[in-house]
């Protein structure tokens, strides 16, 4: 037998041995991945608001606005001397990547910031259903119910029979259009548009004045914010919610989806975006806008602080206008919210902390840190572009028009949306095919 053949035989024998070792493992249930992640305790909080006596330490894990969280904790501890809160800050990407492992481990924090993966965790009982607290603490009175309804994970509460609740918001976000007042005037644009058609006229006017009309950071999330903002005006809000929540039979393949996608393409054909929109991230497009590179910019309230600092009175904000002047204000947004782990030993203390987040005192801290407090009436009125945002937010809340971001529809949706809108902007995909790719992903995720 030649040497190389011999070697080959030996290799095959070795591979067979390895396979023989592995195959029996497959039959063994204990080795099935995920079998150790059983939920130990109850799946819902108690219905009383009693806070335990004695010293309690709550661990809070979060990824957004560390300064705000520190201030909130300090204020909370002052009012609750028995409870100390230990903040554990992680960067957003670390947080989201490890969320599932963290929340299913024995060392899970008592309280954790709500993020996309929470829906699955809630499904499997790793997050406590807070619906009993919603009634006991009367949260519907202290914050707009619409912001709580974002946190139901599309489920019914086993404890109350009503909607479930898997988090309490501390500060909301909202997307919309910023505009450069000087450049707008230069293009003959007088004030925020009242209808979508008027906004299109303004974009055209900016183009005619040899300015770049609209800044879009489509390399990252800017493109999907634009698409969602248009979709919000065209698609009935309830249908949109059904789609994001995964309600059976919901679809994005409808006329509103087509029209919104066609608008994104049409504006690109008319050169309303910066030529390099697909190669520009959200942060870069915001910096370009601040330098005066475009008349409008699609972004969210999280950019308001920076823009107010760099542009002062020269920047304004309006939510994407509806099809006609009387249309409700609808905009995508989500809350920096906190959920409670099913593994916590102190659901009472955690409830007290979450209830504190709905108080006027917490609202002021949230507002001071540049976020929209869930209870805007209770805080001092902000100025400048922050006032524009607060006003837009007030209108959206009044119209029940804060919808969640479209990528919450499925874990993989973010990538489909981002690359899909990039193709729309580059005019490389038919709107119908783009929607089809989204719906495919939706159906795969919501198959069961």
């Amino acid at each position, binding site marked *: 037998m030649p040497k190389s053949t011999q070697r080959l035989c030996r290799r095959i024998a070795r591979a067979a041995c*390895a396979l023989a070792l592995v195959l029996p493992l497959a039959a063994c249930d204990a*080795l*099935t*991945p995920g079998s150790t992640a059983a939920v130990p305790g109850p799946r819902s909080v108690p219905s009383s608001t009693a806070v335990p006596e004695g010293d309690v330490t709550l661990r809070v894990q979060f990824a957004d606005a560390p300064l705000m969280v520190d201030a909130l904790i300090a204020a909370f501890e002052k009012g609750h001397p028995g409870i100390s809160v230990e903040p554990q800050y992680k960067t957003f990407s670390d947080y989201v990547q490890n969320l*599932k492992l963290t929340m299913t481990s024995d060392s899970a924090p008592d309280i954790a910031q709500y993020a996309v993966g929470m829906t699955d965790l809630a499904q499997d009982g790793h997050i406590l259903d807070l619906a009993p607290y919603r009634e006991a603490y009367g949260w519907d009175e202290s914050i707009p119910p619409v912001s709580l309804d974002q946190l139901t994970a599309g489920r019914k509460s086993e404890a109350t029979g009503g909607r479930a609740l898997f988090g309490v918001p501390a500060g909301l976000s909202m997307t919309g259009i910023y505009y450069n007042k000087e450049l707008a005037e230069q293009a003959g644009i007088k004030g925020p548009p009242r209808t979508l058609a008027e906004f299109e006229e303004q974009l055209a006017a900016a183009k005619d004045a040899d300015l770049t009309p609209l800044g879009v950071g489509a*390399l990252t999330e800017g493109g999907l914010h634009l698409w969602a903002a248009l979709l919000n005006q065209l698609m009935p809000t309830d249908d949109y919610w059904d789609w994001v929540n995964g309600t059976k039979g919901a679809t994005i393949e409808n006329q509103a989806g087509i029209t919104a996608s066609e608008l994104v393409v049409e504006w690109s054909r008319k050169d309303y975006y910066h030529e390099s929109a*697909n190669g520009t991230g959200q942060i870069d497009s915001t910096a370009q806008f601040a330098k005066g590179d475009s008349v409008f910019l699609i972004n969210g309230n999280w950019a308001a602080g920076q823009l107010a600092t760099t542009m002062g009175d020269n920047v304004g904000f309006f939510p994407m206008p509806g099809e006609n002047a009387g249309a409700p204000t609808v905009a995508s947004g989500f809350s920096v919210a906190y959920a409670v782990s099913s593994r916590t030993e102190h659901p009472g203390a955690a409830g007290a902390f979450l209830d504190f987040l709905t108080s006027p005192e917490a609202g002021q801290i949230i507002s001071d840190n540049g976020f929209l407090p869930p209870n805007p009436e209770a805080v001092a009125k902000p100025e400048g572009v922050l006032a524009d945002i607060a006003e837009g937010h007030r209108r959206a809340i009044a119209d029940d028009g804060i919808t969640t971001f479209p990528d919450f529809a499925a874990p993989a949706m*973010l990538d489909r949306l981002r690359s899909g809108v990039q193709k729309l902007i580059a005019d*490389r995909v038919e709107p119908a095919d783009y929607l089809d790719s989204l719906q495919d992903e939706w159906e795969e995720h919501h198959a069961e």
Partner: protein
Amino acid sequence: MPSRPPVRPPGTRGRGAWRGYVYVLPAFLVYVAFAVLPALHTAYLSLFEWDGVTLGEWVGLGNYQEILQDSVLRRSVFNALVLVVFFSFVPIALGLAMTGLLARYRRPGMGAYRFLFMLPQVIPLVAVGVTWRWLYGDDGLVNQAFRTVGLDGVTRAWLGDFDAALVAVGLVGTWVLSGLCMMLFLSGVQKVDPSLYEAARLDGAGPVREFVSVTLPHLRGELAVAMTVTTVAALASFDIVYVTTNGGPGEQTTVPGLLVYRLAFSEGKVGLAAALAVVLGCLILAIVYLINRLSRTET
């Protein structure tokens, strides 16, 4: 008196030969614990549909079937193969050219050259990615350079352009790996007996002839190493793509490594991610085997 053979026939084991294995044991255990077992575990996970949290479901080879059918996954493998050109072929060609230029005579300042060309290899790839994202930006150095020479029509946001993005990302790899190839080849050339060059010159060989007949044959081993390292870098690429384009625009620069990461960590499809990782691993092993086979038969 029958005499015993003085030497054991090759291939049989004498007593005491097992001692050699004892010396290998510690390294072998570490290798098994941190390389072999995780690899087998990955292969095992690839047979499940598992979201990383809840009970997984046995699907056999279903994940592999899905890989073959998914157009995005197939596209990503194609992109990785395109990257091989920029991560492997171009750097090796450049490395050889530079070696040809630098190796013929000793020149002053060789240390400085080596330092400069090796520098990209030392910088963390994430930092490289961020730097190039700026260079390729709208007002970045690349576009500024084009504008300076009057080529305003060429400028674009390179990483956001459907036709240019993959090439732009590939050239970052070229930048990183050319220095490595050159270093490998330069050190290989130093083994060559100087008298060979002298002989070649006496026979009237010019620089090209000298390179082809003397330098190149002596670099076969280094070529195999360079090819292996750079091809693996291309097929398993992740950091540069993740930082510069995150797979965009569209799926123009999506590579398998990026998809493994996305599927496992943000999309909750750990089984599918493991299957893709296994396929990618096998593909890399096959190509590396091929490269080594080719470089061996020539000896």
